[in-house]
């Protein structure tokens, strides 16, 4: 991937934001939270092994840690705010995993397995949630079976794009058009279903 050598220099937006937070500017805090939340959800979804609820919880905890730090001592390198946030999120997830692991050694594992977790639904325990229902509508509305197969192979089986194109005799452009159409339709249906961009991954827990 193309990279940019990091040198944002003095007076970068991040530096200004950190300064404002340290000075007690609550609007700056809100701005920071709005900016970091989607990325933190992604990172934590990944490191928590796909546990959406845990990712959401840890995302809030990460933001609190970052805010406390910025309110008190600040960062040595304010331009590295995003990298600091990413590392904080990963560290927090690792700490939670270790804590859970230690807890498990102290209790009856069989009893734990037999007890359903009341507040946390593992992804595999969900039959078809709202996302599944919406994806079913997307599939239904795709013009051809080939398009459905493209989605299945690319997103579900995580197959290589070049391989899919070869197998289905699709050009790169045609492949991208299939994905573009499907993603757009998915977004429209999400909007129709009242799911906004900030609660996508939490939508399975809605009634």
């Amino acid at each position: 991937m193309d990279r940019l050598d990091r040198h944002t220099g003095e007076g970068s937006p991040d530096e200004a934001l950190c300064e404002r937070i340290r000075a007690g500017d609550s609007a700056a805090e809100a701005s920071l939270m709005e900016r970091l939340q989607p990325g933190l959800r992604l990172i934590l979804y990944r490191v928590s092994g796909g546990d959406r609820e845990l990712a959401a919880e840890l995302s809030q905890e990460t933001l609190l840690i970052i805010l406390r730090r910025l309110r008190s001592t600040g960062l040595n390198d304010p331009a590295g705010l995003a990298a600091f946030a990413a590392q904080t999120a990963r560290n927090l997830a690792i700490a939670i995993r270790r804590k859970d692991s230690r807890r498990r050694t102290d209790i009856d594992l069989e009893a734990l397995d037999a007890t359903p977790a009341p507040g946390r639904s593992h992804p595999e325990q969900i039959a078809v949630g709202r996302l599944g229902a919406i994806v079913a509508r997307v599939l239904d509305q795709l013009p051809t079976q080939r398009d459905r197969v493209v989605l299945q192979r690319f997103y579900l089986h995580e197959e290589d794009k070049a391989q899919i194109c070869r197998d289905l005799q699709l050009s790169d452009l045609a492949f991208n058009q299939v994905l573009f159409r499907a993603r757009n339709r998915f977004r429209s249906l999400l909007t129709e279903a009242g799911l906004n961009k900030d609660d996508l991954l939490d939508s399975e827990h809605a009634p």
Partner: protein
Amino acid sequence: MSTNPLLIPPSPDAIAAYLAHRLNEADTHAFEIYCLEHPEFAREVECDLALKIGLRQLATAGDSPINPLPHPETVPAPGLIARRRRPHWSLAAAASIAILLTGVLLVSRLSPRVPPIGFAELPAALRQASLAHATLIRTRGESLDTIALAAADQMLELRILPDDLVADSAAPTAHDYSVRMAPDTTRATNSFLIDGLKPSADGYLHLYLKADAVRGRTWLITVTCSPPRPGAPLPQQFHIAFATAPAPSG
């Protein structure tokens, strides 16, 4: 931290690679930092992730009553499709269980009404099976009829003879058909469409339904020919209700 931020937004391929855990650690960290610095981009990635989660849910639950997503190996390249192949699960089931439940539902307005063949009318030995085939010979006119399904999980093979093929039987496989199943209800339930269907040599279209997904509802089934035949009485529509058969006694 040594990670360098990305210069340009990651490509759709990079997004897919990230979500599939195919990026190396350095690229993963660079991708995530880009997400933290560009919340709109992160939301786009979340949208792709939600699409993946939805697909996974569908694949796990097998929710669609019409042919579930076929395995990639069952879908040949365009131009090579002679007729839709059966999904792999139906082959496995068909190999192990030999049950044929032939339900002649409605032949025509002129013919005597044939009662639906229900679960209770099956020989006892067949009631234990997990697969049933219902052969829908023809439907017309007042087409609402009922197929009784056993309480246990069943796969149902639905064979439909398109109306226009009766009038033009010379080339039964020359056209593609689409079949839409829509629940006849005001409840918000999805309809399902399967297209690109080719009649088999005997002229029938083959659909495979999960009994649990269609049970308890009346469905409006619409058969459409593509491209339409001149003068053909399409689309062909009829209703079928899928009910739960009473539990076998003894």
